[in-house]
């Protein structure tokens, strides 16, 4: 977000939206006729400008964004679990430090995204509740287990690789706060993918057992990674409208093809074989052809019947509930401090009232 030059002046608008001061931004305002507001919104989209929190927007646009950003945020924090599973068993201090930093980044990505969602007038606590009660979903890829250390490499290379391809165009999404969060996230994802590739490369060029472990990880993660781009264009429920609103810039199938084209030569460099007998370069198309995806598996996992669905949500709920006393204690402490301050005479007011209050966080 800092990367965007104009973010400074836009800040105030985003702020009020986030604060909920204008939570009902989409509601009818007495000043302007709905048709006029709709026309102004469409003008912005057509001019490829960004929609900002306090702008009028169609209710369906707002809902689509809340659903998509929340699902994206949920995916980031649920995604901490399969990788967190290996932190205590990382094979070296170097790998452990890398994995810790990566899992911390995923938490950060979740928080950037919840913050972006809150500019649309929703509350983070409500979004988390929707995740915990199954009313909102997360990416189905995180319902697969991490059975071996090589899976950590496969997740970095393939899952983060697929996420990057999905996320790069989202940096130009029509909704400003979402686009700015994506700029930040994309910068950080690149480390995620490279550490995974390096990890797999080391294994693939290690002992025969290590090579086999790397191949096994690729065998299990390849097809679920292709499913990350969502159902085929013809069956994608929201695609066309999202593209018209410029929330989305490319179709699911186009992004999936890009992923295959990028990954196939990388697999060769790893010395591993992609588990698809139909995968081959098509000179005429200038792309790789690849085999049929088993969409029934995707539907099953989406319906809650993947290998780890229940475990992932249960662990998230447990972590949230276990943390509740900490949040309550922090709030109680803050209230106590405030009461103490209020009881004191106003003697310690700064001589220069315009000076920023310094809070030492050391």
């Amino acid at each position, binding site marked *: 977000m*800092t990367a965007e030059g104009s973010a400074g002046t836009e*800040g105030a608008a985003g*702020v*009020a939206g986030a604060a909920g001061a204008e939570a009902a931004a989409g509601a009818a305002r007495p000043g302007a006729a709905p048709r006029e507001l709709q026309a102004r919104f469409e003008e912005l989209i057509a001019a490829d400008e960004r929609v900002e929190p306090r702008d009028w927007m169609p209710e369906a646009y707002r809902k689509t964004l809340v659903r998509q950003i929340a699902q994206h945020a949920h995916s980031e924090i649920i995604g901490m679990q399969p990788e967190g599973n290996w932190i205590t068993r990382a094979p070296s201090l170097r790998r452990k430090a890398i994995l810790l930093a990566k899992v911390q980044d995923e938490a950060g990505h979740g928080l950037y995204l919840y913050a972006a969602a809150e500019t649309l007038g929703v509350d983070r606590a409500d979004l988390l509740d929707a995740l915990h009660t199954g009313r909102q979903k997360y990416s189905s890829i995180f319902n697969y287990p991490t059975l071996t250390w090589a899976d950590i490499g496969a997740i970095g290379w393939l899952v983060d690789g697929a996420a990057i391809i999905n996320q790069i165009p989202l940096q130009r999404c029509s909704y400003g706060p979402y686009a700015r969060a994506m700029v930040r996230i994309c910068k950080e994802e690149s480390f995620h993918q490279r550490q995974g590739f390096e990890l797999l490369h080391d294994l693939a060029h290690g002992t025969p057992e290590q090579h086999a472990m790397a191949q096994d990880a690729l065998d299990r993660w390849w097809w679920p990674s292709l499913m990350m781009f969502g159902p085929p264009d013809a069956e994608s429920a929201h695609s066309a409208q999202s593209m018209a609103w410029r929330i989305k810039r490319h179709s699911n199938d186009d992004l999936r093809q890009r992923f295959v084209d990028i990954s196939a030569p990388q697999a060769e460099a790893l010395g591993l074989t992609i588990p698809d007998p139909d995968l081959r370069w098509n000179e005429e198309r200038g792309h790789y052809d690849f085999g049929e995806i088993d969409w029934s598996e995707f539907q099953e996992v989406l319906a809650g019947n993947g290998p780890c669905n229940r475990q992932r949500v249960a662990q998230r709920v447990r972590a949230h509930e276990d943390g509740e006393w900490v949040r309550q204690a922090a*709030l109680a402490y803050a209230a106590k*401090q405030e009461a103490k301050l209020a009881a004191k005479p106003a003697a310690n007011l700064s001589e220069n009232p315009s000076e920023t209050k310094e*809070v030492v*966080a050391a």
Partner: protein
Amino acid sequence: MSTGLPLWEVFIRSRRGLSHQHVGSVHASDAEMALRNARDLYTRRGEGVSIWVVPAAQVSASSPDEKEPFFDPAADKTYRHPTFYRIPEGVKNL
């Protein structure tokens, strides 16, 4: 169970010589926790040398609906721009 941790807007000075810029928000019980959370969230890769946190509820913003009347006074005063003025050809350093 809602936690009700207040929302804070975060501003970061990315390096000396630049002003603070809005980067996003955090939830925290008080200013000190907000600063710590903002440090963990927005400066993991040395993105800042100074952080401000402001209670989100304390920010007042202009309304986008008033965009035209509110900013109108600036639109018709082209004489505030140097290009408004005719300068004879050949005059330098002006």
